[in-house]
């Protein structure tokens, strides 16, 4: 019997759209977008071009927290790994479909 390759499957569980995420909102409002930090406390956050967040650089407009499960799965291919993990997630409610959505992705494990 052939040895099946190993995959790393990541399962990201986050609140459905429209459901508030007070932790993400607080990180955005009270840390990332907070005005008036002095240099000792991080000052303005600059991107690689030296632009401050909120000026010419990228602007972060939303932060959502999530729970991430990383699984090691032996499977024939990535698609089967994702499909099988999704079955487990659905059957055992690893995420709560009432309030959460789930995003599942697989990549070949490094030797």
């Amino acid at each position, binding site marked *: 019997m052939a040895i099946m390759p190993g995959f790393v499957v990541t399962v990201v569980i986050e609140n459905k759209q429209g459901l508030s995420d007070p932790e993400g909102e607080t990180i955005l409002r009270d840390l990332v977008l907070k005005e008036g930090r002095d240099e000792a406390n991080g000052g303005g956050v600059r991107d690689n071009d030296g632009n401050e967040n909120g000026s010419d650089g990228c602007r972060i407009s939303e932060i959502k927290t999530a729970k991430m499960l990383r699984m090691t799965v032996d499977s024939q291919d990535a698609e089967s790994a994702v499909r099988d993990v999704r079955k487990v997630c659905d059957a055992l*409610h690893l995420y709560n479909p009432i309030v959460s959505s789930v995003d599942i992705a697989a990549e070949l494990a490094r030797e």
Partner: protein
Amino acid sequence: MRLVKVGIVVFPGSNCDRDMHHVLRDVFGFDVQYVWHTKPIPAGTDAVVLPGGFSYGDRLRAGAIAAHSPVMSDVRRLASKGTPVLGVCNGFQVLTESGILPGALLVNESLGFMCQWTDLVVENASTPFTSMLRAGQRIPIPIANGEGRYYADEDTVRDLWRGGRVVFRYADGPVNGSVGGIAGICNDDGNVVGMMPHPERAAEYETNPADCGPARMIFESLAGCASAQQISHAGYIGGGERGEARS
């Protein structure tokens, strides 16, 4: 002396099971036994309580792992047969996670563990746990939870209100972000009630010297309801036609 058999389900991490046992047995005279979560619920059990605590340390989500415990198939079966089932705090979370009650309990909007007195308003006074209360009555009962923010989608919440299935709401607004200020709900038949506040912490003068009367009525309601069941059961044994034999 009332000797109605109540089973308290104990999961790994339950921690209000002994408080509940004390109140049910020592204060209200029930015949109480613990039921470890891998064991069946004994035949002849008249009511089931899922107590508060942190089953499996709230890992994954509060109640998510306990919802798959072997005992839950018995809880589900008894619930569908009309046996009174009360889930308090983590017990409520287990009932929603297992789909016996609708909706979900999310992390409080404050993101913190909230331990404080709340006033509840009785919205449904016809469940086995509220029949001796009045609709609109205020009950002081404390909450103690980190994941107590009740959530269900709009249609479900509307159906809950229309169907009289909101049993308790917070009197002074949603203390933790619960939709509609919902603090407790029941199933369609009304025999399964889940609530975040802890009635077992409010039903004695020693723990609630200000006003333990209303919270006591939650347990008195069960006593009255369960006694009525026993009478009906006795009638059945005596050759009456009504009633189903209990397992």
